[in-house]
């Protein structure tokens, strides 16, 4: 079973909120110094899902990521976990893309890799939280798909998945090839073994440009966006605790409820 996993490297989502900074002019997040980017959480689950399928059904796993040199660390981590090969998509033309523009590049790369059975990716990335890539890939590749997915089984060439719903799941079956957006309920991503880490260190990771993928600059990156970011900012939040003052505890409870409603939190 040949699987392609698309991963994204994002700023560490576990940075405490107080350290989070945005450059409003550049509309870009400024990560705190010394904090390394990581593989987006749901993408880790996607890698693990691919590894488990490979353990059960054999085949090869190729990991793709679009980004600058730093994503090579993410790709290496995926190889260290057990993936077989990796490709980096890097080109100035790819910069500034939204989910769709990125998916265009990913889809072209997937086609270039050749025949595949399954494309896995996280249900959404921990940075922009848009969750559009799995569906975009399904549309671009013209194959069936489902998101978010908490369980995958392959029975006689047919894919059986469980799509997460608010109160449980929905079973769906589909033929291969397909695209699945993976959710965290599915597994626990494994820690790389030492052999894996060493193999990753030696791995050769080719870099493909837009031209390699047969794409023109207006199809990808900033020019390929379907959604334009007009503003990015950190909402001003009081860092001090606002204590609810009241005569009695009961009054405090009521005031708190009103305060929460006022803040649209309930």
């Amino acid at each position, binding site marked *: 079973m040949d699987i392609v996993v698309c991963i994204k490297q994002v*700023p560490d*989502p*576990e*940075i405490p*909120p107080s350290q*989070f900074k945005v450059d409003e002019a550049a509309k870009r*997040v400024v990560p705190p110094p010394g904090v390394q980017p990581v593989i987006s959480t749901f993408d880790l689950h996607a890698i693990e899902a691919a590894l488990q399928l490979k353990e059960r059904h054999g085949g090869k796993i190729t990991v793709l990521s679009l980004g600058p040199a730093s994503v090579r660390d993410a790709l290496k981590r995926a190889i260290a976990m057990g993936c077989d090969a990796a490709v980096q998509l890097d080109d100035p033309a790819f910069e500034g893309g939204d989910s*769709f523009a990125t998916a265009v590049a990913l889809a072209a790369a997937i086609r270039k890799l050749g025949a595949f059975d399954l494309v896995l990716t996280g249900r959404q990335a*921990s940075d*922009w*939280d*848009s*969750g*559009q890539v799995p*569906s*975009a890939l*399904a*549309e671009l590749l013209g194959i*069936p*798909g*489902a998101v*978010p997915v908490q369980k995958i089984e392959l029975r006689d060439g047919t894919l059986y998945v469980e799509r997460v*719903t*608010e*109160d*449980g799941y*929905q079973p*769906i*079956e*589909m*033929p291969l090839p397909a695209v699945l957006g993976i959710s*965290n*309920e599915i597994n626990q991503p494994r820690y790389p073994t030492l052999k894996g880490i060493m193999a990753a260190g030696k791995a050769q990771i080719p870099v493909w440009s837009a031209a390699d993928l047969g794409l023109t600059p207006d199809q990808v990156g900033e020019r390929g*966006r*379907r*959604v*334009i970011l*007009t*503003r990015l*900012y*950190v*909402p001003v*939040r009081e860092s001090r*605790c*606002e*204590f*609810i003052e009241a005569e009695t*505890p*009961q*009054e*405090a*409870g*009521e005031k*708190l*409820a009103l*305060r*929460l409603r006022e803040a*649209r*939190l*309930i």
Partner: protein
Amino acid sequence: MADGSVLVIAEPSEGQLAPVTLEVLGVGRRLATTLGVPLAVALLGQEVERQAEELIARGADRVYLLVDPRLVPYQADTWVPVLADLVRDSGATIVLLSHTQTGREYGTRLAFRLGTGIVTDCSDVQIDTDGRLLAIKPVYGGNAVAEYKLAGDGVQVASLRPKLFDPAPRLAEHQGEVVRREVQLAPEAVRTRAGARVRAAVAGPDLENAQRVVAGGRGVGGPENWHLIEELAEAIGAAVGASRAAVDAGWVPGPLQIGLTGAKISPQLYIAVGISGAVQHLAGCTGARTIVAINRDPEANIFRHAHLGVVGNLKEVLPALIRKCRELTAQ
């Protein structure tokens, strides 16, 4: 401009109208009024006819009824082509839906099928000065807010975060029409086969993905008081969590534990009741956007990390809080 319309897509729901549909309807109504265009609703399914009346009463100018057994249960391969046809035929310029587990799938596929884009999980949408949709959404786990416009001049699609908007109110004497549409579906377009939804054994929102969480700690005092936590959670539609102390004491099972060695949560609202705020616990909830702490000890560490605080005995604060919340959410 008076051309076009706002189209709201009703959340798949057989029989009863889904509450989130009413939330999106309310927003759609506002946008439609601002733009001076009609508000339409797409109602797909089988047992959905009765919902049309309610939708009209709450502001829909037109309800497209697409009744067909092939649309039940929901699956992307049936809904997306049908909706795409509807959007093209109806001349909708803005399409809205709820960003549920289902909406996030078909809404996105629909946008791309139509050759346009979508802004997902919005916390607000407005009409900008140029008459185009301005969509606002939290990003980076809620640490930042992004504002978006759709490129080009095609249909603008946005999915709205559930439970954030008020449901559309009933309008006095509102009229609207019901338009039945035949469902055209090429068999070869449907590659998947979906089954009916299965309810999971554990009721209630899953802790790690919940938007609201109420957690109890040592201060709750004993299992006999734990119902206060559960009642508060239920009143505001929250998942129940606990600090390690409550799990250690055996008041709740292990999976409810929030902290360094338990669940990591990043809800919009986190209410910590009787929790002192040890660093190991905080490691599990620093992702929460708003932290509310209720504790008897004014020096408790949790207050250094909370945004709202009540110093008091939870046995006295909570009943009043629960009552008021129930009152407010029922409105």
